């Protein structure tokens, strides 16, 4: 593996169908609407614990996941709502999870930071910074093992998302080195939103201005994408993924993005200026794609309003569904799902309601 100049290594993919870009627009709008309502529900104390919304970063998850096959494993950190939805988790199961309801994607046991969806090959939602990266390498190991030892399945690649703050965890370093020496098809996708909580990346990460050095230390190709433009993300990721799939080798991708809201729901945000936020908001990925589609005649204001309405309806439905979903029952649920083989006080495990659905049922709607 050799170092790759991010500027030259990737050619633009063929023009993406307007239909597809419209789907991306809707996916991003759905995430945005979902997160806005999440914030509201949090303020209404319907959601507990920590809650980190994805607003501003929608193009990352949507662009990356669009470029992957539906059965390529996806794993991420605790800011996971966007990835789960982009992957096709139905909003109702996501919202119910945050409401701590038994209909949630983890039956109310995981919460905002621990979303999971077996059906869509979404492996979580992990709340220890950097802790998901060795797991991601393990998913890549498993796909390769299935292929080569078990001789089953097609070649898959793993999308392992992480925040810029995870760059400084030893786990990532070990994971990247392992992916490299064991030649595992794991993509380390850094959503560089410039901050980990209140720490600007330059304050916490050496060589923040040139993350290609991080990839180079493991002999991995480095790629970069503008995370405020879903088409740019897709373009880069399509090539990265195709190549990683063919070579069954790791790569490192930096997506330059921004979160508009605070780190969590209790963040005074003194570490950045209002102007800085406004600058990024002016470059909003949803607005940008909508404008482009309008300019190309593939969307008009009316259709856009209809789209807005449809995502609002979908999220409203999700909230209503979550509201009515029953609370877990301590007597019945506390000691379930601890183990697969029951013993002593531990009852059996059962998949969440969500798992009964057909794959792709929502993703295609």
């Amino acid at each position: 593996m050799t170092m790759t100049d991010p500027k030259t290594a990737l050619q633009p993919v063929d023009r993406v169908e307007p239909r597809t870009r419209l789907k991306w627009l809707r996916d991003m709008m759905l995430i945005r609407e979902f997160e806005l309502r999440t914030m509201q529900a949090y303020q209404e104390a319907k959601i507990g614990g920590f809650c980190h919304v994805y607003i501003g970063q929608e193009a990352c998850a949507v662009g990356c996941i669009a470029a992957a096959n539906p059965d390529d494993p996806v794993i991420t950190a605790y800011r996971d709502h966007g990835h789960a939805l982009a992957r096709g988790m139905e909003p109702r199961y996501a919202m119910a999870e945050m409401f701590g309801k038994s209909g949630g994607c983890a039956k109310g046991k995981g919460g905002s930071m621990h979303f999971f969806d077996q059906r869509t090959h979404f492996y979580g939602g992990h709340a220890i910074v950097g802790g998901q990266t060795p797991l991601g390498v393990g998913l890549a190991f498993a796909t390769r093992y299935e292929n080569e030892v078990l001789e089953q399945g097609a070649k898959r690649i793993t999308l392992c998302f992480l925040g810029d703050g995870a760059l400084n965890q030893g786990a990532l370093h070990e994971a990247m080195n392992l992916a490299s020496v064991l030649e595992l098809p794991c993509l380390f996708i850094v959503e560089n939103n410039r901050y980990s909580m209140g720490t600007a990346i330059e304050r916490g990460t050496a060589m923040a201005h040139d993350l290609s050095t991080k990839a180079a230390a493991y002999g991995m190709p480095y790629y970069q994408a503008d995370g405020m433009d879903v088409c740019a993300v897709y373009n880069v990721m399509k090539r990265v993924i195709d190549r990683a799939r063919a070579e069954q080798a790791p790569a490192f991708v930096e997506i330059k993005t921004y979160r508009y809201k605070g780190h969590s729901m209790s963040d005074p945000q003194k570490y950045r200026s209002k102007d800085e936020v406004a600058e990024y908001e002016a470059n909003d990925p949803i607005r940008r794609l909508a404008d482009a589609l309008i300019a190309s005649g593939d969307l008009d204001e009316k259709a856009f309003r209809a789209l807005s309405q449809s995502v609002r309806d979908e999220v409203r439905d999700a909230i209503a569904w979550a509201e009515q979903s029953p609370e877990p029952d301590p007597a019945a649920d506390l000691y379930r799902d601890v183990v697969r083989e029951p013993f002593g006080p531990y009852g059996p495990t059962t998949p969440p309601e969500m798992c009964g659905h057909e794959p792709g049922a929502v993703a295609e709607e």
Partner: protein
Amino acid sequence: MSAATATTTRQIQFREALREAMSEEMRRDPRVFLMGEEVAQYQGAYKVSQGMLEEFGPRRIIDTPISENGFAGLGIGAAMMGLRPIIEFMSWSFSLVAADQILNNAPKMLYMSGGQFGCPIVFRGNDGAGGQLGSTHSWAVEGLFSNVPGLRIAIPSTPYDAKGLLKTAIRCDDPVFFLESERMLGNKGPVPEEEYLIPFGVADIKRAGADCTIVSFGRPVHFCLEAAEKLAAEGIECEVIDGRTIRPLDIDTIIESVKKTGYCVVVDQSWPFGSVASEVAAQVYERAMDYLDNRVYRVCSDDVPAPYSKALEQAMLPHAGKIIEAVKKAMYLA
């Protein structure tokens, strides 16, 4: 022994008590510094260190990247050289990535070096359930770490104790694990203006009573007091002992009480197996078996990963209801 409760004593928050302890010690001893994630510019993820950057400057209040193993080890190295680091874990749950440094190095360095290099260091942060944070973020690390010799573990339940114990911790020539609780940081309590220190290994009888001994540590002490109030209404007078430190454990105070009451309930926010509660129970039997009129009852968190759901989490954690039930069972009243 207990906090002065004279009406004249000012009331401050738990986080303020912690801050005062650190600030006073930093003024007294220039070797003391504070390091951790978001402790400086952000003013502390939980505002414990608010204002300290301003007073002490960036050389002594130091922000770190998310590298717990790295900066825990950094602190230990600095302590080997005679500095007195306070290392803040935003949560003790994140100390698992630093387990090697805090368990292999801090508590063993003095021994391994044949008495040459000690580790006068304090690791502190939020321990236990923080309110629906789920499995990875709700560790009560006393269940894991109290097994390890060479360290002190302090776990205050009130602002008064927090301040006095933290000052002792900072002055201690050995490593101290200092366990706070996010759920208590806003609690107010009386803390005198005058300086005081609370020695390690001295439990505090938070409520006197002759009928049943309740032993606890940290946040659950409040549930014990709540239970004791309710039981008092039924005519049962519980003695609530706040251990305050787990290592050293003030077993003498506990035994003295058990000898008086004949009944003992231990309340511990960690999982039951091999827990602080198991240890207290085992030691109580070892030292006071002949005085016990019943077996010791343990109230711990349920032996399952911490769930997110509020209903499940509340069911899992110790609370007054469970304690009342345990006291009644212990006293053959249920």
